[in-house]
């Protein structure tokens, strides 16, 4: 149970902004190294601007490091090309964002089907069945045919989670998934994540402000100014979580 699936080695992220003739470069992550184990439920915390979201996007192949290397299951993703990264995001990662970000023109079911259809590996019929199953898993089976604007924020976020799970990702990445929700809906999302981790041994990495949420995970990584300030494993992966 202790095999490493994500490994970051001396990752540096510097953003260069050209402001007129002036070149301003900002280092967000100076030099960070860490790894994640399969089945681990981790939380990355830290103040705003500490680079925790940037780290999550680097891990999830949404962004590329300026220096350093990132491996997913021993494959170096930081060396891949744009097209390969797109496939990787589709097959290996599932994302949940702070703003629920569903496609407004599509129903809940269609939104969940979208990652499955993107690569054309499955038939529409099978995608539909799988999506319905996932919606059931997140407790949204009765909202299949609703458009996002007919749903509450909490409901939208659960659908976003279902979508993130569409292609059975190796890692579920969440960026402030409860940042925009009230406490009741936040609680629902925590429980959902816990359930996914416990029942499916789903690897989850969550970026959050929410200490309460962070405490319920296996591992809490606190980042300040792009450096790891604290990295505490509170529980072993696979162990049950008390609430």
């Amino acid at each position: 149970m202790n095999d490493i699936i994500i490994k970051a080695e001396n990752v540096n992220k510097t953003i260069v902004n050209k402001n007129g003739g002036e070149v301003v470069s900002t280092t967000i992550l100076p030099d960070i190294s860490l790894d994640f184990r399969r089945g681990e439920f981790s939380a990355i915390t830290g103040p705003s601007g500490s680079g925790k979201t940037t780290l999550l996007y680097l891990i999830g192949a949404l962004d590329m490091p300026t220096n350093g290397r990132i491996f997913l299951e021993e494959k170096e993703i930081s060396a891949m090309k744009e097209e390969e990264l797109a496939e990787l995001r589709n097959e290996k990662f599932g994302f949940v964002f702070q703003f629920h970000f569903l496609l407004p023109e599509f129903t809940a079911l269609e939104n969940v089907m979208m990652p499955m259809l993107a690569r054309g590996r499955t038939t529409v019929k099978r995608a539909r069945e799988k999506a319905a199953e996932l919606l059931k898993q997140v407790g949204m089976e009765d909202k299949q045919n609703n458009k996002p604007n007919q749903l509450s924020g909490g409901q939208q976020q659960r659908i976003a989670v279902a979508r993130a799970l569409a292609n059975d990702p190796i890692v579920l990445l969440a960026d402030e998934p409860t940042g925009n929700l009230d406490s009741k809906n936040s609680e629902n999302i925590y429980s959902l994540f816990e359930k996914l981790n416990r029942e499916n041994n789903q690897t989850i990495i969550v970026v959050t402000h929410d200490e309460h949420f962070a405490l319920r995970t296996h591992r809490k990584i606190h980042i300040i100014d792009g450096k790891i300030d604290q990295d505490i494993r509170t529980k072993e992966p696979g162990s049950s979580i008390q609430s």
Partner: protein
Amino acid sequence: MKNKKHLFLIAFRQLSQRKRQSILSLAGISVGVMVLITAISLMNGLVESFVQKIINIAPHVLVSGEKMLPLVPDQLIKPGKNSEVNFIKNVYRSDEEVIKNYKKIMDLIEQDSLVEMATPLVGLNTIGKFGTTTLPVQLFGIIPSSQDKIEKFKKSMISGNYDQLERTPDGILLGTSAAQDFSAKVGDRIQIVANNGNIFSLRVIGIFSTGINDIDGNVYVNLKLAQNIGGYPPNEVTDIYIRVNNLKKDYLVADNIKNLTNYKAITWEEKASSVLALFKMISMIVYFLVFFVVLVAGFGVANVLITNVLEKTRDIAILKSIGFKKSEITVIYIFQGLIVAIIGAAIGCLLGYGMIEILSSIKIASSSSSAVRADRLLMGKNLWYFTFSFGFAVLVSLIASIIPARNAAKVNPVEILRGEK
């Protein structure tokens, strides 16, 4: 990327979400296509009906009495820097422009298998007098039976009897414009004054209208009478009209005649070249203007796409985060452009068809100054007007979609997903 259905679906849903804007740009394309089809139809209708009339009622090749100039040294050698050429200018006999021994020449011409028939004419500039009206008039002497095979007078008669001309040595046939100018009708006697002052009193046996103003201003008599009026001996005529059996080879006939007889022979295209060139120029201007109409419609498509891309950056970021490739994002927006273009152009084709029907049913007063007389707009109808206009609009829209679509692909998901910016 085998299956693009879902990309098409995304494109379509996004468009239908912005109904008003999509329909407006669609309408732009429709109007552009309609105007394009109407303009092509108008221009081609005019040119085609003109050409058709000419082919039907004018000679395909015209042989005139003008001798071809033999090539002589002053035309062959250009004085250069270091050469000195002395020459004496050739002296020509300035003959009257007549075809001598026309029967022999016609025999020669008719040996050409491309020639369907030939008929001799005498063309004269005379003065016509009727009542108080005195006007210069182009008079032609013809052999009525064979002339009819070219100029189809019999079909164009509006009063009188064409066959009577052959039996009436002093008969005269008037074009409708000439008849109007003189206010003459069948049975009247018109005086024709020859160059040498002789006056011939001729009886109007018929009036015709071909629809081509050039021909309808002329008057026609028997060949013998015209030779008499012009003072030509019986073996001389001024022109020979030829009909060929293959229009595409008329220039071969003309060349052959030039070589054989040394008389000038021109094809109908050469004769009508100034009118055809004018038509061509007008067409160019019209197409140029219409091109801009479609171009503006293309801007409409670009506009819809640009706003769609701007408003959909969130969705684009999401699509990228769930693994859509740049190329697939591009395809989504190209699809949007194509959907607008194809629906718009299809509607435009229907509108264009309706426009042609409406315009060709409107009666208009004909102007006598135009080349072809007609009581309504002469609209062409051809499938290629539609396929061309459709294809052109789709092409313009496709080009208009490329830049917004590529901008869409360039959206950086990280910036948008971080938070609402």
